[in-house]
């Protein structure tokens, strides 16, 4: 069996529609093309990233994304040896559009098709970009997710901890909204924080005293809201300086929580894996340079894939599909679109039996 394979990846599980062509040859892969049709910039003027939940809208863009990805890669469907598609977790309409598109292409060309977990795509990206060897610890930190995973194989993920409420990306967006900054909030808050004093306002660092890798960010936005209202009451408004200082204080709190909990997650991982696993980070929030530098202090060998591969994309889906294919883990059941699909259903905090497989 040849290990060289050209893989078409398709991703449409949230706001973006994406397709990519990846030429895979162990131990890595070459990204021939990676097309992402996003929503964010288009809708920034409405004060938020508008969700592209309409299956139809994804479906319309999927064909174009695939066509463009093949075109940029300079190949046709006849050069593709495997199709990988995100089949969850995510917005069900988008996921279904992607899976139907992939099914059609695979059936038409008699190609093998593999369903990929979107989170596995993120979690396996350092293998594509940094040739990361198993095991390693992945901090997945985005608008909708925040979790530590011990990655031991293409299908072996152990959840070490995560947020018990909001994800940091969401906190950034909501803080931007509270302070009247533009959306998406991540870059706006980071920019404002650059000139701010992180010590003027002290925001809470919840769960820091707990001896585990769980985090909580929902109280932080409330604290920011109270601080804003206090300033408005005291001085009749908010000066640019106040915004900068609030953003700096908020970002410092996020950095502190993430670095502290990353240390704990690495300790837990060492206990499970036996050796000191390296750290990798992925997800949109990994773009924040203050967070990156805080994580670099925790683990000097930090693997941080380039930004376009940290946010949602189809190259990571192609890669995860390839790894799964090579490991012989193709499962027709994985092609059933599902909104919820935890990577690790072993260490999810289950107290008893009776968990329904279909819902997981």
């Amino acid at each position: 069996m040849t290990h060289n394979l050209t893989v078409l990846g398709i991703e449409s599980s949230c706001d973006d529609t994406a397709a990519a062509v990846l030429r895979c040859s162990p131990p890595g892969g070459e990204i021939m093309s990676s097309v992402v049709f996003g929503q964010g910039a288009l809708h920034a003027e409405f004060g938020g990233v508008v969700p592209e939940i309409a299956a139809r809208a994804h479906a319309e863009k999927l064909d174009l994304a695939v066509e463009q990805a093949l075109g940029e890669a300079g190949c046709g469907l006849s050069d593709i040896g495997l199709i990988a598609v995100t089949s969850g977790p995510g917005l069900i309409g988008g996921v279904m559009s992607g899976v139907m598109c992939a099914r059609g292409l695979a059936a038409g060309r008699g190609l093998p098709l593999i369903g990929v977990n979107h989170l596995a795509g993120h979690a396996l990206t350092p293998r594509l970009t940094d040739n990361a060897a198993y095991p390693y610890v992945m901090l997945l930190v985005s608008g909708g997710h925040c979790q530590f995973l011990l990655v031991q194989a293409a299908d072996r993920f152990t959840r070490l901890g995560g947020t018990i409420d909001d994800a940091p990306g969401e906190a950034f967006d909501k803080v931007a909204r509270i302070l009247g900054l533009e959306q998406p909030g991540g870059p706006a808050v980071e920019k404002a924080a650059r000139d701010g004093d992180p010590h003027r306002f002290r925001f809470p660092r919840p769960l820091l005293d707990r001896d585990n890798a769980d985090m909580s960010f929902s109280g932080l936005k409330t604290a920011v809201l109270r601080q804003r209202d206090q300033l408005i009451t005291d001085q009749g408004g908010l000066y640019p300086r106040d915004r900068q200082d609030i953003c700096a204080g908020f970002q410092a709190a996020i950095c502190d929580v993430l670095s502290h909990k990353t240390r704990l997650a690495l300790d837990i991982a060492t206990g499970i894996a036996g050796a000191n696993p390296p750290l990798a980070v992925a997800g949109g929030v990994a773009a924040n340079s203050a967070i990156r530098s805080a994580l670099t202090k925790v683990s000097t060998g930090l693997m941080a894939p380039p930004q376009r591969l940290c946010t949602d994309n189809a190259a990571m889906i192609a890669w995860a599909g390839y790894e799964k294919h090579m490991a012989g883990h193709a499962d027709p059941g994985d092609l059933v679109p599902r909104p919820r699909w935890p990577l690790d259903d072993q260490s999810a905090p289950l107290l008893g039996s009776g968990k329904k497989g279909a819902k997981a």
Partner: protein
Amino acid sequence: MSADEFRTSLTLTSPDQTARLAHAIAPRLSAGDVLLLNGPIGAGKSHFARHIIRSRQAAIGLSEDIPSPTFLLVQTYNAGGCDIWHCDFYRLNDPQELDELGLEEACETAICLIEWPDIALDYLPAGAAHITLSMTEDEDTRQFDIRAPRRWAGIFALEDA
């Protein structure tokens, strides 16, 4: 206030009290019950919803992560006998998009906890309970204003919450 309407206001002085309210009403909810949670950022809508879900899951021996639904709009949970839909329409900009989510069916077959429901008000069942959470002078205290059809009175009957 019409005779078939139920209204009540509660002052809860800590997040723990909000959690206790959630745990008190959770076992009384059944498929088709829709709770609309209004209130500003930080009022505790998610906190309240999370404890309803936690309570229902604990009753059947489950304990899943309950992430914020803001980004994915809907998170669904096994609530023993039916599902719970935890929704957040903060990011929704067109009520037509509700069709895509299958909300209409969920309002009949599941327990629905809906944050930021304003955009969907015309599409939600008339039998839904409206809960408005407000912040107060005291940092930890929240005011709960409940307005719902009469049948909800039993669900919100709180001797010990």
